């Protein structure tokens, strides 16, 4: 009883995911110091950051988006285009990209968030397709399908380069993103989002402005996506419209669902699953995609709540 209560408290404590995540971030470079491993880990953190936007939008508020990669693309190309075509500072462009994504989300979200379920899914899908299309076709500005080179990011005079440095920068960004997402969950805003997830009628019946709350979640999700996109572009030094593609949107949705919808730590686990597994499966060559698909199915069948919530529930049940 005592042990169970303690563990239950630890598992439910607000900052447990953050502490575990920070510990992991310190451990990875000790266990896997090669620059290849660090690069993969940094990619996990970036994708997790993008997917955290969906954790707020889909996990908390229950609003589906199949166009989230559109915002990743906006953030990525802001960091690519701003310095190359306008001579702006890359860090400033990272912020501008986030603001731009937020403003676009505000404009797009107002009409489409009136839609529900499948209809919202299709409308967001349409948005993502349009962003990808523009990035493809405006070749003079975006470089078209071949993409464009991205200049180095410098943080207050420090030029970020090398796998380890990028590892720490992306770690920091994800920690901040995770902290903010956990803060929202434990606040009046978080309660309002979870409430409208369960019943919009009842949420409105308690005085919640359902439309405004959904819009806030949508804008927040867009900003997460754009910051992640900007980091992705700057780290890789190259960006293509692939970043905004439909398949990328689907991948982000898969991350939050596999990891555990609404779970911040689950989002990181889901991102790790979909970034690391393909790397491990490359040895299988042409079977890689098939095995990956199979693994996703197996995980969803046996851990239908997602990896993290399912394991947590399992542990809590098994304790004496």
């Amino acid at each position, binding site marked *: 009883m005592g042990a169970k209560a303690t563990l239950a408290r630890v598992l439910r404590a607000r900052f447990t995911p953050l502490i575990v995540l920070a510990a992991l971030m310190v451990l990875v470079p000790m266990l896997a110091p090669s620059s290849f491993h660090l690069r993969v880990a940094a990619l996990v953190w970036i994708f997790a950051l993008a997917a955290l936007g969906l954790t707020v939008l889909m996990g908390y508020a229950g609003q589906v988006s199949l166009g989230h990669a559109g915002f990743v693309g906006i953030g990525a190309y802001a960091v690519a285009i701003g310095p190359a075509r306008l001579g702006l500072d890359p860090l400033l462009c990272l912020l501008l990209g986030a603001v731009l994504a937020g403003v676009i989300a505000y404009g797009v979200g107002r009409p489409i968030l009136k839609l529900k379920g499948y209809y919202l899914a299709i409308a967001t899908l349409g948005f993502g397709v349009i962003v990808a299309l523009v990035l493809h076709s405006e070749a003079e500005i975006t470089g078209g399908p071949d993409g464009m080179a991205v200049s180095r990011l410098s943080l207050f005079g420090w030029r970020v380069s090398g796998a380890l440095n990028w590892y720490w920068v992306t770690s920091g960004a994800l920690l901040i993103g995770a902290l903010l997402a956990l*803060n*929202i969950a434990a*606040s009046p805003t978080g*309660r309002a989002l979870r*409430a409208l997830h369960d019943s919009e*009628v*009842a949420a*409105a*019946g*308690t005085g919640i402005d359902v439309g405004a709350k959904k819009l806030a979640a949508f804008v927040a999700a867009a900003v997460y996506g754009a910051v992640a996109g900007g980091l992705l572009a700057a780290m890789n030094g190259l960006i293509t419209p692939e970043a905004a593609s439909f398949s990328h949107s689907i991948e982000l949705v898969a991350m939050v669902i596999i990891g555990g919808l609404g779970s911040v730590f689950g989002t990181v686990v889901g991102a790790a699953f979909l970034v690391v597994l393909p790397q491990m499966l490359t040895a299988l060559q042409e079977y890689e995609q098939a095995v990956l698909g199979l693994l996703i199915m197996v995980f969803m069948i046996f851990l239908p709540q997602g990896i993290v919530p399912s394991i947590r529930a399992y542990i809590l049940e098994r304790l004496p």
Partner: protein
Amino acid sequence: MSLLEVRDMGISFGGLKAVDGVSFSVEAGQVFSIIGPNGAGKTTLFNLVTGIYRPSRGKVTLAGEDMTGLAPHLLVRRGMARTFQNLQIFFRMTAMENVMVGCNLSERTSFLADLLGLPSVGRQNQVTRDKAIALLERVGLAPLAHAPAGGLPYGALKRLEIARALGAGPKILLLDEPAAGCNAVETEAIDHLIADIAKAGVGVVLIEHDMKLVMKISDRVLVLAHGRPLAEGLPRVVRENPQVIAAYLGDHGSREADRAHG
């Protein structure tokens, strides 16, 4: 001037006049009941008054202020809260979180403060939690505060909805069949609760099929049939009204009559 005044409300769905020319007024501290056979238009009338449907005619005023056609979340802010006939619970939240959501109008943190997790958010959460616990105690659900709402029995959920609605600090509370599906003990508890709410000065509008409950706690009763008002007045007078008896013994009403006597 009454607390709540509803004048000549009407709405049609296709050709069906679901509510047709209904007027009533409710005073602070009063229990005003609306009864009528299934499909009489009671819930539709609630949906018109609380802004879920836009009335094709009629007017709603609350404390003299015109509320007609206002969105539900704005109506709550002006003091009108309700519960739902088909439960509308936040099933994935605990009982306490449900009531905490009900208290959101008194919460004073901004989105930015929530995002940054400022100390003011923690203090606000504590204030809201205390309020929610007090409300759960009031409806007798305090022992179940931390239970997931999805696992609570039906009677508890009915009371949970009332606690959540009270969180908005309403001047007027509309209850759509709060005792439906409740056993005798639970009905008794709801009966006391409603009387207690009215005694605190809240105007209560009650839709209820349990005639014993209605006759016992109502100050006034309005009878609807086919969307139209059939009779209105003191419970005892309405009960004796021959038109009301006929409506309740008609093909729609025999079940109601059974319930009234059983």
